[in-house]
């Protein structure tokens, strides 16, 4: 067993609880895992860390009209370590890095108890051929789910290169291919301002979807 982040050998700790049965395969060493920061409790709506009540941004989203997003759950804070992790996984294209936190991803997913269909966030053709994989689909596969492809993306501007105001002012880059009439969960890697998920949520809700949730790795 080796850590999928630092490649160090993982020597499982044996105690009386697991002496008869070694724990399930570990994929991340304790040092690397300790560099991720958990979010607790965070904003009950979007999971923004270091607050406990509905945060300012969520209030803003629901001020003029109803917020299309029901709730977001994120695993970890988007700290420097997470930024490096995302850069290596998504931009450098180290696909197997997702295995490092797969057990945590599955655990949080189970705890959320969302028994809804899972919708993938599409990439533009250009980004997809550059990266070789869609990060949202990779995550959904980690959850042992089948992604629903309801959307397509026009244009290829990177969200991460824009500022909050620019993102919010930008036109909706997504187009609906198929409608759905059940609640869904959107799965993506990062929730920064929440614009991407709300763009999609608006589209889905306008076309008959009753509730939209989102599940993201980092917040």
């Amino acid at each position: 067993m080796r850590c999928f982040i630092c490649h160090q050998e993982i020597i499982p700790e044996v105690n009386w609880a697991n002496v008869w049965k070694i724990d399930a395969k570990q994929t991340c060493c304790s040092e690397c895992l300790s560099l991720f920061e958990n979010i607790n409790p965070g904003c009950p709506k979007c999971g923004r860390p270091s607050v406990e009540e509905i945060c300012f941004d969520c209030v803003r989203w629901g001020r003029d009209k109803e917020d299309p997003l029901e709730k977001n759950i994120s695993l970890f804070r988007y700290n420097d370590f997470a930024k490096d992790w995302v850069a290596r996984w998504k931009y450098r294209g180290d696909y197997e890095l997702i295995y490092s936190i797969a057990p945590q991803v599955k655990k949080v997913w189970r705890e959320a108890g969302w028994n809804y269909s899972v919708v993938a966030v599409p990439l533009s053709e250009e980004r997809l051929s550059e990266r070789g994989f869609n990060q949202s689909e990779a995550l959904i596969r980690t959850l042992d789910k089948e992604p629903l492809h309801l959307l397509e993306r026009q244009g290829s501007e990177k969200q991460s290169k824009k500022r909050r105001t620019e993102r919010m002012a930008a036109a909706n880059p997504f187009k609906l291919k198929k409608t759905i009439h059940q609640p869904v969960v959107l799965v993506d890697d990062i929730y920064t301002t929440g614009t991407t998920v709300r763009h999609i949520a608006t589209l889905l809700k306008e076309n008959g979807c009753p509730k939209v949730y989102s599940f993201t790795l980092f917040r």
Partner: protein
Amino acid sequence: MFKKTEAFNWIPHHSTPHTFPHYAGKILLPHEIPPEHIEELTKTSVLTRVPSIIKKQCRRCGNQKPHLFGHLPHAKCQQDCLYCRNCIQMGRVIECEPLYIGSPECFWPAWENALAWAGELTPSQQQAADEIADLVKTGSGEKLVWAVCGAGKTEMLFPGIALGLAEGKRVCLATPRIDVVRELFPRLQRAFPAIEVQALHGESEKTGDGQLIIATTHQLLRFAHAFDVIVIDEVDAFPFHNDPSLHFAAKRAGKPDAARIYLTATPRNQEKRRIRSKQLPVVFIPKRFHGHPLPVPKLTLSFNLSRYLKKNELPAAILNLIKKPRDRQLLIFLSSISLTSGLRGFLASKGVVTEQVHAGDEDRKEKVERFRNKEIDILLTTTILERGVTFPSVDVFVIDAGHEVFDEAALVQIAGRAGRSPDDPKGDVIFFHSGKTNAMLDAYDLIRKMNRLGQKQ
């Protein structure tokens, strides 16, 4: 230096020179080349397409370890493709995409009298410099320059580099540490003002199309048969000495008939074995450039040291020595990052003002600069400052010298930080320990042996 397992016969031999220095001797991923030029450049064999992963080995970094390969459900191929996780930081090498090798034959100018350095070499430096220059002239060979810390290794290289440039050769000076690249770059540029020296490291923006390059050993992963002269500084340093892919890269970056020069103050067993069996020619400089002997470390026993360190405290005896007024600055080496911050707090509580640096420190460069300008009196550091950095007048303490991070090479290098300047060729070096280790004794013996040999010369 390297095992003869890899012959690199997959790298094409070219004879027609071209005028694209940014492709010369480079290994490129498809997306690193403008797509509209690929066909033309391949047709004229400036670029050659080679498979990227062959027999479970990555051609760019030489990785063969199964756990450092991954599978990717590739959107383009609609199937699982193998990719290398070892060199992923330089962009993904994936089996379904080729690598492009740039022909090394490029027109490099010949620079007459490029060397502007007017300093003088000591007789032992001169001897090494002559041997290096001879090797540059003949090519096809290796030489280990075994010189004590502070012998003036960089200056010994100048005549050899000048000779190579005069013959229109391409020269690379590689070192494992980015700090050393930063420190040597201005010195090299001053010595060769007519030439644009390029510094390549993980944070630099340069493309690596220069004739004279100073790079981290990691950057050599981008080159294949590119250099006529390749110098590897600090061959015994982390991460070079224990990373097989860097050895692979260093071997490949030089042309088959390249002159290969290795510099070290503390050869590892692998090199020592090759020296003893006369496979690796060596030139030996046991004397510092100012002619004074190396400061010999004092081994001081300190009872219960680890118990104090666990509480982030120091025994009174060491604390008093640190507090004692001194003429020089003080460099204190510690075994871990947490200890540098822990002891900094402890010393502050005892009224001793210090600063700390470690590998992850963003302000490292700036703090080292402040220490050099004597704005800081006492610097707490991990082994990050063990080599490559020069402070004119320091005393050196190693606390818990028995810790495994302080191996023989590290201790010799650390002791070599003291007495660098001809104005102050002495300095106290004290290893505080709670039991002598072989590493400490070997380091002590090596320093004494060098001083003996130096006296004979």
